[in-house]
Structure formats: C-alpha cells, structure tokens
C-alpha cells in the first residue's frame, strides 16, 4: 500500500470517507514525516500537533456516528504564517509579530475547517510576503527539498517546500506578485493564484491590498479544484470579495484533450533574458498542448516591459500604508524609546522590521511623497491600466496564455543578498497577472540538466480558474512531471 503521506488530498478524502484509513492515521503519518525530516528544510515554523490530532479524531468520530463528512475531511493542510487562526500564533515571518495570537480566524481557513480539513501548522515565509526566496523570514530560511543548498522561492517558500517534501498534500499561501506561483515553480509543485477577490482576504496579514490574493499549492489540479470549491465566494468581512463561479471539481474532467483551445504565447514573456532551459521546458509544454489539439497563437503584451517597476511602486506604496499599523500600541512587540510616543513607535518599528521590509517601506514612502507621487505612483497606476488593456486585447483572440513562471530555476541561498534589483526581476513573469487581477497557475513541466524543477505558467481572463484547472488536469493525464519527488 502507498504510504499515507504520498496520497493526494482527493485520495485521502475519498479514503477517509470510505473507511480505507482513518483521519487520525493520516494526520499522524504526516506529522511523523514532518518531525523526521523538516529539521533539514524548515518548511514549518510550528506544527499544531494537538489541535490537528483532535480535529482528526473528531472527523473519525463523525464517520463512526454516520454524520456527513466535508469534501476535505481528514486532509492535512499547511497554512502560511500570514493567515490568522484563532488562538494560535501568526507572525508573518516577522520578529515584530513573534508572539501575536489572533482573536479570530481567517475566512480562508474557517472554510477549510468547515470542509473537514486538518490544519497541520504554519509554514515559513518571507517577512510580510516581501521576498521571493524565503530568506527574509525572521525564523531563518527555508531550503529547497530538491537540493537544500537552493532557495525554495518565496514568499510562500515554506508551503512549496512542504508539498515538495510530502509533508502534506495541500498548502495555503498568498500571492501578491507571484508568491504562490514562483515557489511552486522552483519546488516542482502546482500553485494557483485565483482571480483577485475570488477568495476572501479577511484574516490575511496585508502586504499590498489591491494585489493580495489567497492561493494554494498541491501536486494535482484535482486537489486545487477541491480547495477552490470550498474556499471561494463572497464574504461580508472582505468588501473586495466576489461570488464563486460554478464548482470546478465536477467540470474538471469535462475536457479529454485540448481541441478548440487557443493558447496565446506572449512574445514579451517567452523571449530574450530568460534562462535557456526554462524556455525549452515551456516549448515542451506548448508542443504537448498542440499534440492534444490546442492551437498556438502569437500575441503581444507591450506593457509587460514595465510590469516590474509598476508592481514594485504600487506594492511598496500600499505596504508603506498597510504596515503603519505596526506601531507598538495595539499588538506586536514594543520597544520603549526616551519616554515619548513617537520615539517608542520608531524604535519598535526599526527593531521589529527586517532590512528588506524597511527598504520597501522607504521605497513606498518615496513613491507617495510630495514631489514624486505623480511621477512614480501616478505613472505606475496608469501603466497598470495599460497592462490590463493589453491583456483584454490578448484574450479577445485566445483563451489562455502560456509562459514560464520564473525567468530562472532555483538558485543558491545567499546569492542575491546584495542586489535587490536582480531579486525583483525574478518576479517579471508573475507580476503581470497580479497587476491585472487575473487567475494564473504554475505547473511543473521539467527540470534543468542538474535536476532543478521548472514550471510553466498558465494565465486566463477574470473568473476562468476552471479553465486553468481543466487544462492542467488534461496535461497531467498525458505527462509525468508532477509525479517527480524530491525525497524518498
């Protein structure tokens, strides 16, 4: 029999419902694997063993008593450290929130609990989501299970590493400029960023509110469809939330191939400046899609050339505003300073925030400051509108867009510390969909000559997550890239 920690979320849910194994057995198997191996990777900041085993026991009792089970009953799920869970610590990778315990639960987690999921623990992340290597976490870096000398990507690096190491079949993350998709690509797993607003942001620690999305990582399209179906939908606690579409799971197998599908290949996202092996893998995905009946269409998104600048000006401006709340008054760490209120706030923030967060707060403050706001933030807002118009033109002629997810595969820890601009350019292919609020997925589709995973990115128009899930599901039926494991 396959080890319980190797099973997909859908297989676990079916097995628990059928009585093939218990939720308690599944939870214990996953926790044991985390405790055996995670010292080498630091995917988790903390596991919630007692809570998880109690949840699992309650599910087993429900089944024994003949009570109905949720669609994710008994499925172990890892939660990024920026989604609050009542009574547990949430730190967003920051020293400043090291001991913060939320008085309420994030909607995205509450809906998982209602569906029977077993929340295993919180996973490591770049501080407040600001980074793409998971090295800016106050808890230290996470390492890539394919090679611990490499970064796992970020900011949901802990969640991606947890899936890659088979610590759980489903990990919840957040994606502001690629923080689910890029680590998914670097760790060889699937990552879904839904349409902006599709999943409630209530209880997500804010980074850049016009861009933040709750997303998920898993091994299969089927598992991500299950997650989306239980999580998506309107929430009175998030005024930007939007209604759920029809459930994706029943429609997942509607396509047997890709006939009738027009796949746009944007020139600006498939050309010079990208790693050759990354481009080769993307061509492989395009070829398979064509063999399965899809038509490839050349297209152009000219504003993509300015997407990184646009993204970082908007995101840091919003972050500078959002992070003003960390002032040592209502929650978080406090450092006293010369007996005065302002001095206390300055000392609290300067000692609590890490270097990258402080750099981005200063950049965002600059982008909004008198004399520069129009030239920087104002122009970025207009460029964002132009990018949205480019996407609308492209989607008038095709159903979905294909590109690499990341310009390069995983790189060594510590290699980008002195060069923030190079690090920002790692987001060049993921920030366009974020700025336009579009759904996008990363799917593993090969690796470099030395075994580093490479993912491709599928982007659709607003509300078409189901199409993305159908395409990636069809491709998973005709390829084996998603079956490659980092660890025995």
């Amino acid at each position, binding site marked *: 029999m396959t080890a319980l920690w190797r099973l997909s979320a859908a297989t676990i849910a079916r097995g628990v419902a059928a009585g093939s194994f218990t939720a308690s057995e599944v939870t214990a198997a996953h926790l044991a694997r985390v405790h055996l191996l995670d010292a080498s990777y630091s995917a988790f900041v903390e596991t919630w063993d007692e809570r998880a085993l109690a949840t699992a026991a309650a599910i087993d009792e429900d089944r024994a008593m003949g009570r109905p089970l949720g669609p994710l009953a008994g499925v172990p799920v890892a939660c990024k450290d920026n989604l609050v869970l009542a009574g547990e610590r949430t730190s967003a990778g920051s020293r400043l929130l090291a001991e*913060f*315990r939320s*008085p*309420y639960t994030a909607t995205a987690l509450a809906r998982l609990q209602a569906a029977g999921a077993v929340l295993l623990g919180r996973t490591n992340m770049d501080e407040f989501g600001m980074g793409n290597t998971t090295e800016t976490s106050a808890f230290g870096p996470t390492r890539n299970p394919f090679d611990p000398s490499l970064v796992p990507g970020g900011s949901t690096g802990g969640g991606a590493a947890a899936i890659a190491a088979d610590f759980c079949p489903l990990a919840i993350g957040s994606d502001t400029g690629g923080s689910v998709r890029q680590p998914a690509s670097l760790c060889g797993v699937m990552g879904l960023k839904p349409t902006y607003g599709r999943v409630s942001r209530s209880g997500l620690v804010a980074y850049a509110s016009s861009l933040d999305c709750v997303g998920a990582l898993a091994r299969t399209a089927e598992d991500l469809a299950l997650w989306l179906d239980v999580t998506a939908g*309107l929430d*009175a606690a998030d*005024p*930007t939330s*939007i*209604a759920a579409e029809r459930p994706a799971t029943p429609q997942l197998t509607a396509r047997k191939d890709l006939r009738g599908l027009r796949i746009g290949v944007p020139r600006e996202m498939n050309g010079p400046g990208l790693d050759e092996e990354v481009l080769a893998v993307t061509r492989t995905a395009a070829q398979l899609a064509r063999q399965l009946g899809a038509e490839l269409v050349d297209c152009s998104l000219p*504003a993509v050339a*300015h997407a990184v*600048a*646009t993204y*970082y*000006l908007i995101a840091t401006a919003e972050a*500078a505003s959002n992070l003003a709340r960390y*002032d*040592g*008054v*209502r*929650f*978080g760490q*406090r450092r*006293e300073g010369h*007996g*005065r*209120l*302002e*001095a*206390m*706030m*300055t000392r609290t*923030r*300067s000692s609590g*925030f890490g*270097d990258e967060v*402080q*750099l981005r*707060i*200063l*950049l965002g*403050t*600059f982008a909004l*400051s008198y004399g*520069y706001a129009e*030239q*920087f933030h104002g*122009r*970025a*807002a*207009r*460029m*964002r*509108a*132009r990018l949205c*118009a480019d996407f609308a033109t492209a989607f008038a002629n095709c159903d979905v867009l294909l590109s690499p997810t990341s310009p390069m595969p995983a790189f060594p820890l510590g290699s980008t510390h002195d060069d*923030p*601009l190079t690090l*920002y350019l790692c987001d060049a292919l993921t920030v366009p969909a974020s700025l336009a609020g579009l759904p996008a997925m990363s799917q593993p589709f090969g690796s470099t000559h030395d075994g580093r995973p490479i993912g491709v990115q599928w982007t659709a128009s607003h509300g078409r997550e189901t199409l993305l899930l159908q395409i990636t599901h069809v491709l998973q039926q005709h390829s084996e890239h998603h079956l490659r494991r980092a660890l025995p």
Partner: protein
Amino acid sequence: MPIQVSLDRALMQHLADLARLHVPTERQAVLRQRLECIVAAFSTLQDAEDGHVDAAKERQLELRDDLATPPLPLTTVLANAPQHAGGTFVVPRVIDA
C-alpha cells in the same frame, strides 16, 4: 526623459521620519545606494507613453448590508496589547506636562 533623483541625506531622513524608521549611520550608505539603484531603474516608467489610459476605471463591487455586528470583546481586543490598563491601550506620553 527619465528623471534623475538624488536621494541625498536630507531626503533620506525625510523618508525615514515619514515612515517612523531610524536608519543607523552604518546602514545609511548601503540603503541609499540600493534605493537609488531601484529608483533609477524604475524611472523608465517616465518614458512610457500612457496618455489615453484611464487609470481610475474600477470594477463595481457589491455593497454589503449596512448592519452593525457585535464587536470583539474588550478583553480579546486588549489581549495582544504590549501595555493596557482600565480597558485602554497605554502609550508613552505625547504632551509635555
């Protein structure tokens, strides 16, 4: 033409004051150099033609019912406060006696 921005000491101090951050002397040069490098790279936006795009166009959001809901209990709200007393957050003095 991309604009040239010199992040001189005065501007850096102004930004730090606005952001309520203290940048230690030994970090000022590195931080300034990094910010200048980023701002210079992002100045390319100045060259981009963007005249006809309406940035103010936003999607319509559904309004929720305008109903008051129970707030969190006071003890819960204060549980994470670094310092509290008598049902209030305690902060250092703001006005000199």
